[in-house]
């Protein structure tokens, strides 16, 4: 009965257990597993047939792609230039050419078999020389075949293609809409004729895209002009435009660009604004700050909040100063001295907050005005 459970353990554990038992000279119940050794077998006279190993191509012999150069057990030879190795260490040619058996100074203990692309070039190629490469591709001269091959898509591309097209269509539509928007908006800031307006709108679309992409306004303007000029010089290169007319077109563009840049800017939220001089900017900023400071003592309500927000969202402030101003003038809770606890229970508001210094929850009672709720 007891033997049974021991036999269920793995034989290795049982073996260890038994040896431990033997040493301890305690009574041992020997376990015998149900094994019977098989009859002995003849071990001599074993030999396999020849595996037909050995070199299949000699030095300087001409080979085609994929021809086997040597069959071997282990890497008696290593694959050199333009030769590959299989999982049974068979070396084969990767390019057509002439077989070379050679030594490489970087692996002094190895022998290599490679394929030279020329009859006379020895291997290995000197270490710092450019590699000798065969192009090996065949041009499709038949126009039908060529166009079919050009249109052929990989499976991945084929699956993605409709989406790519639709995305492109959407993007183009967005660009057109943007251009239309600028065509409508720009006359407010700058006087432009019909053709000039088209150019200006296109410029603004490009500038906005670049600014949104992370460039500064100056860089965006510069690269927009640069792209225009570059495209024009390419037109000249193609012969579609004469050099002289290209110059005049460029000059016209520069004129429009200067006019436009002097009139409009994009603020930090990419909103189209009138360009201000430094003095004007300073004056506006001071004016708004004064207005904001005037609101500081008045308790907030929804109307006032909207008014302050509209004041802050002005082109004269950049993103970080807008955040600072919001923190200062649009506090969710007014600073402590304003709206101290009132006895009137109807207008009282209670909040709980965590006191980090003392590690406990504080209950704060304030007037509702302090929260801008009325």
């Amino acid at each position: 009965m007891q033997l049974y459970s021991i036999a269920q353990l793995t034989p290795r554990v049982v073996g260890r257990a038994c040896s431990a038992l033997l040493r301890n000279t305690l009574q041992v119940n020997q376990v015998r597993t149900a094994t019977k050794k098989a009859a002995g077998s003849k071990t001599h006279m074993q030999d396999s047939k020849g595996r037909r190993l050995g070199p299949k191509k000699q030095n300087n012999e001409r080979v085609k792609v994929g021809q086997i150069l040597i069959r071997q057990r282990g890497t008696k030879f290593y694959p050199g230039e333009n030769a590959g190795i299989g999982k049974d260490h068979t070396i084969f040619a990767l390019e057509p050419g002439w077989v070379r058996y050679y030594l490489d100074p970087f692996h002094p203990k190895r022998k290599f078999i490679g394929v030279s692309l020329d009859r006379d070039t020895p291997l290995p190629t000197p270490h710092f020389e450019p590699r000798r490469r065969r192009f090996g591709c065949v041009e499709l001269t038949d126009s039908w075949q060529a166009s079919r091959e050009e249109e052929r898509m990989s499976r991945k591309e084929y699956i993605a293609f409709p989406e790519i097209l639709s995305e492109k269509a959407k993007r183009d539509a967005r660009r057109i809409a943007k251009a239309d928007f600028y065509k409508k908006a720009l006359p407010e800031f700058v006087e432009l004729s019909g053709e000039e307006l088209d150019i200006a709108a296109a410029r603004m679309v490009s500038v906005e895209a670049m600014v949104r992409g992370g460039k500064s306004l100056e860089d965006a303007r510069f690269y927009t002009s640069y792209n225009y000029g570059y495209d024009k010089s390419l037109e000249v290169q193609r012969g579609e435009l004469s050099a002289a007319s290209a110059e005049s077109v460029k000059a016209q563009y520069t004129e429009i660009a200067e006019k436009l840049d002097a009139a409009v800017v994009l603020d930090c939220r990419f909103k189209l604004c009138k360009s201000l001089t430094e003095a004007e900017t300073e004056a506006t900023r001071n004016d708004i700050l004064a207005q904001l400071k005037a609101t500081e003592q008045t308790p907030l309500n929804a109307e006032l909040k909207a008014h302050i927000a509209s004041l802050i969202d002005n082109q004269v402030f950049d993103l970080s100063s807008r955040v600072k101003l919001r923190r200062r003038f649009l506090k969710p809770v007014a600073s402590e001295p304003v709206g101290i606890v009132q006895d009137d229970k109807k207008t009282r508001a209670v909040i709980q907050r965590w006191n980090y210094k003392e590690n406990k929850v504080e209950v704060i009672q304030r007037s509702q005005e302090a929260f801008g709720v009325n």
Partner: protein
Amino acid sequence: MLGYRSFSTSSVSLKVGCAMVKPVHHRVKVIKKLLSPRFPELKLSPTDPRSPKFRPEITHQDRVQEHIHNTLRSDLMLINYIHGEKPAEGLKRRQWDFTSPYHINRPARPPKGEKVPTPTIMPQSWKNVPGIEKVVVHSFVANCTSDPKLNIGVSLQLQQITGVKPQSVYAKTNLPSFGLRKGVKMGAKVELTGRDASQFLSTLTELVLPRITTFEGISNRAGSRYGTVSFGLKPEDVLYFPEIYYNQDAWAKRFGMDITIHTTAQLDREARQLLSGLGLPFVGTEREPKLTR
């Protein structure tokens, strides 16, 4: 090469037949670990507190080391200074004379009359004043063959005394008559360096050795000839380590230990001089090594 199992047939054809390191064309050493975006914290140096390997080490004053540096070292240099002393050449391996081509790559012969070469002993100067290198505490428990649980107790005792994580020691030889098999865990050891070693030595000299009634001193004959001194403590002596003494109930079973003090001294004589300065007593006659200067 191990074949790997997979359902895909292409994986078999992708199996590489050989590995080849291609020679590069530049001299910039590329450390792949730094190029990989994985495990950024493992790229930090271990001295960087943001690295998981960082250990704040300098936390206490090391009185023993200070004593050695402030008091002992200059005395040791002056005691052992002999004017005009020449280096005592050690026995070196004998090279072949290459009269035969078969001498190439043949290992050199051992020194005459010895199996291993001996070091050259340089005269005392300000550059080779001895110091403590490390202390190895080693417990070999013969009963581990019959009771392998003892290994845990030994390790724990060493860890409690030294405060350093012990390593296991294994039987080196096969002695079936003692039930000893090669590779069986037979105890533990710790290697102490720096402050741990100093702490251990001062506990030993201040608390443990003075209370052992039978202890007269370390034998002047114990040593490795070249600057390493060792001695042993019996299980009953180990009791006096404060970690054991004040918690005797938990330590019903105690284990003896061998203590080996490695010094940078060139000879045992110098090592003993150094250790006597730390309060370790020595007894017996000292043998002077034969040196040919």
